[in-house]
């Protein structure tokens, strides 16, 4: 027996050594694994460095901008080198600190157990080996673990890092940083607040002006019948470009252009020869004439006018003809079939300018009276202005739809009204005959008041005490007298017995 126990002790000691070896191997793997696992988090956590440093860089560039211009490519290269350094250092520090964290013995054994599918045998053995008292099952478990441990020593441990890229908005930091760096690079090129740089830019601007003028030179006024006012846009942009390019000071050509463009923009086409002239030439309304006209037309459509007099009542065909003559095609284009000359004439230009005498026309507008309308149809018609949806035919009283939800329907809306007109058209027709009221004896009045909640004090809850007094003999009609006697004697005996026990 002592020999056997010695053998067991030796086996246990061997197992301890093996467990330590397993733990050492697992610790190395776990440290490396933790370092890899810490990398994404460190990369994300260090992102602010990528924003702070570019901000500093931008600040420096601004300061340098005011002092002396620097070479942008040189500055960019230096900036990238300098800015990445703190970020890289931070990430390295995080990874190394994660890898250097202590790995507990049990955690290392657990890693081996999990990876080699040993069903916690090594952890269990380590636990049981430290116990002073061991049962047969514990010894069996240790023996089982020693077999598994010996087998596991030959198997390599894999590095299986659980890399999870943290979902964070920190990725915006490098973008912001890149943007700041970009801004920093742009500074010497974009702005020139100081003397020499400003002169250079003015020269540049002048050159660009010349270039614009040269570009504009070969352009000729194009008058196309199918051209649309869309062609006006490039002209406008060119105008604006020219204005911006000279930074407020207009070139003589531009000044001429500005002088030429009046209210009607009629004179615009000739000097500049821009496509806008072509748009006007085919009879399209000018920008100024258009909104006023269209507004007026829409108003005319909305309100029915009262025909004032015979001269105001213009035949429809004639009015359309007038419209055509005025060139107000309203986007219909010349393809509408107008027989008029599409080239802008003095008459049409004159027509497009707002005329003062047209305004009072709106003021005189009146809505037709309903009575007049009725007269026109002949006979008395129901007042359609008070038209409303047909009254409800639902005769059921309301439940719960009233305030309080107490099931009291209360007075509901009108249920019935007479006549087809009422049902179909929804025109209210009074449900009574004009005349004197029947002087009856009975008068029924219905109170049309919403039911209100009564105010009363709630009754307080009280504890109900059990009856203490005599409640009377319990009736047992089913039991016969003999059975009653038996039951009574049984309970008497039982009570006597319990009293006797209590006395004891």
């Amino acid at each position, binding site marked *: 027996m002592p020999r056997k*126990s010695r053998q*067991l002790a030796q086996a246990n000691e061997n197992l301890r050594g093996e467990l330590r070896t397993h733990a050492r191997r697992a610790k190395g793997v776990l440290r490396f694994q933790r370092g890899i696992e810490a990398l994404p988090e460190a990369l994300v956590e260090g992102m602010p460095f990528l924003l702070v440093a570019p901000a500093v860089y931008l600040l420096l560039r601004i300061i340098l901008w005011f002092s002396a211009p620097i070479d942008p490519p040189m500055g960019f290269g230096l900036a990238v080198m300098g800015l990445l350094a703190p970020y890289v250092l931070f990430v390295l520090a995080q990874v190394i600190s994660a890898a250097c964290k202590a790995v507990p013995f*049990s*955690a290392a054994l*657990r890693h081996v157990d999990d990876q080699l599918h040993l*069903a*916690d*045998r090594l*952890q*269990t053995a380590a*636990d*049981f080996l430290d116990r002073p008292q*061991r*049962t*047969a*099952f*514990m*010894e*069996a*478990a*240790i*023996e*089982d673990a020693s077999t598994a441990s010996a087998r596991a020593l030959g198997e390599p441990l894999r590095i299986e890092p659980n890399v999870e890229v943290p979902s964070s908005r920190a990725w915006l930091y490098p973008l912001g940083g890149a943007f700041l760096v970009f801004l920093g690079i742009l500074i010497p090129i974009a702005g020139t607040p100081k003397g020499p740089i400003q002169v250079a830019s003015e020269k540049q601007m002048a050159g660009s002006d010349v270039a614009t003028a040269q570009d504009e030179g070969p352009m000729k006024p194009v008058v196309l019948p199918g051209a649309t006012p869309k062609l006006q846009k490039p002209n406008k942009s060119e105008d604006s470009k020219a204005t911006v390019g000279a930074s407020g000071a207009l070139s003589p050509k531009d000044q001429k252009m500005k002088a030429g463009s009046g209210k009607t923009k009629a004179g615009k086409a000739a000097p500049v020869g821009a496509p806008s002239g072509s748009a006007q030439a085919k009879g399209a309304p000018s920008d100024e004439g258009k909104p006023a006209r269209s507004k007026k037309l829409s108003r005319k459509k909305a309100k029915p006018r009262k025909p004032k007099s015979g001269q105001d009542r213009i035949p429809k065909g004639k009015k359309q003809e007038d419209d055509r003559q005025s060139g107000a095609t309203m986007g219909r284009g010349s393809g509408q079939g107008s027989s008029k000359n599409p080239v802008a004439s003095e008459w049409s230009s004159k027509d497009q300018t707002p005329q003062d005498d047209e305004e009072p026309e709106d003021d005189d507008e009146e809505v037709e009276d309903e009575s007049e309308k009725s007269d026109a149809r002949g006979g008395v018609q129901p007042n359609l202005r008070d038209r409303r949806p047909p009254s409800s035919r639902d005769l059921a009283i309301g439940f719960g739809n009233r305030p309080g939800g107490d099931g009291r329907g209360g007075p509901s809306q009108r249920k019935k009204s007479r006549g087809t007109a009422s049902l179909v058209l929804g025109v209210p027709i009074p449900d009574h005959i004009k005349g004197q009221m029947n002087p009856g004896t009975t008068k029924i009045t219905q109170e049309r008041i919403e039911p209100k909640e009564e105010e009363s004090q709630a009754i307080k809850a009280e504890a109900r005490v059990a009856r203490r007094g005599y409640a009377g003999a319990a009736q047992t009609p089913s039991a016969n007298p003999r*059975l009653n006697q*038996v039951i009574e004697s*049984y309970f008497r005996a039982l009570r006597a017995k319990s009293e006797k026990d209590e006395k004891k």
Partner: protein
Amino acid sequence: MTAASDPSTAKEAASKFKAVHQKIKDEVSRVIVGQGDVIDGVLTALFAGGHVLLEGVPGLGKTILVRTLGEAVDLDFSRIQFTPDMMPADIQGTQILVEVEGGGHELEFQQGPLIANLVLADEINRATPKTQSALLEAMQERTITVGVRTINLADPYCVMATQNPVEQEGTYPLPEAQLDRFLMKLIVGYPEEAEYGAILDRTTGNEEMKVSKVSNGEEIMAMREIIRGVPVPDHVQRYAIRLVMATQPHSAHAPVVVNENVLLGSSPRGAQGLLLAAKVKAILDGRFAVANEDIVGVAHPVLRHRLHVNFQGQADGIDSDRVIDGVLAHVRATGGQG
């Protein structure tokens, strides 16, 4: 070192246990086709000394499984068909007047079907909570008190209840106190396609399957002793505790899925159940101590009826099994497995 700590005795005990388990399983499998997990679960509850609740749609052989087990093991078997009009006295027993020789009458206790070794409580959720409560004392204390009389139930004592998940009409859900007393809740599913042929052959032919008694009460008790002797390492015990605590809303280890969807978590009985069932699993897997994977293996049947999903969880279609999955993942992710 004493003789008891000789590893060979543990190995012998473990192999004996496996042999007994296997022979009972084989005998039950002569009648029941497939459902290996359910049979294992029922036997686990029997050997661990717990009660089992079988849930499944009608016609899946829940009742026949328990009846066959009662026949395979030489135990006093009784079946109670729960009905809404059943009273506690109907299952516990009552005192009746009997005529004695030589004239006269006396009250005699007529024991109910609850007094047996293996009780099949068929469609337990059809009885009223009053009647269901009559089982509480029997299941936990292994005693029945009627009037002034207290009856100790004979070991082994095991209640195997069945309930139907679809028949909500006329059923009463089991109270939490009673659900907690079941060691496991097993879900009986539909058989596989390959199993249908065998089921039809066995049930529609002339041959009647006879189940022989392959074990008895003493043997079951001896197996229970073996199971109780299986050691639990510290890290496994910690894991079981953390799992149970993680099912309790707003506890230190509770994950978000529990805090949001669980009304009532597992009681300490859940941890006891985890370890007892895991011990059986460890021995059946050829190990001499419980491992974390045993706990994981029995977590669903042991914990699913102890978790009560709240209204929000029910509305989101979350059941207790999903919560347990979340708990297992959370405890593993937080390094709670040792």
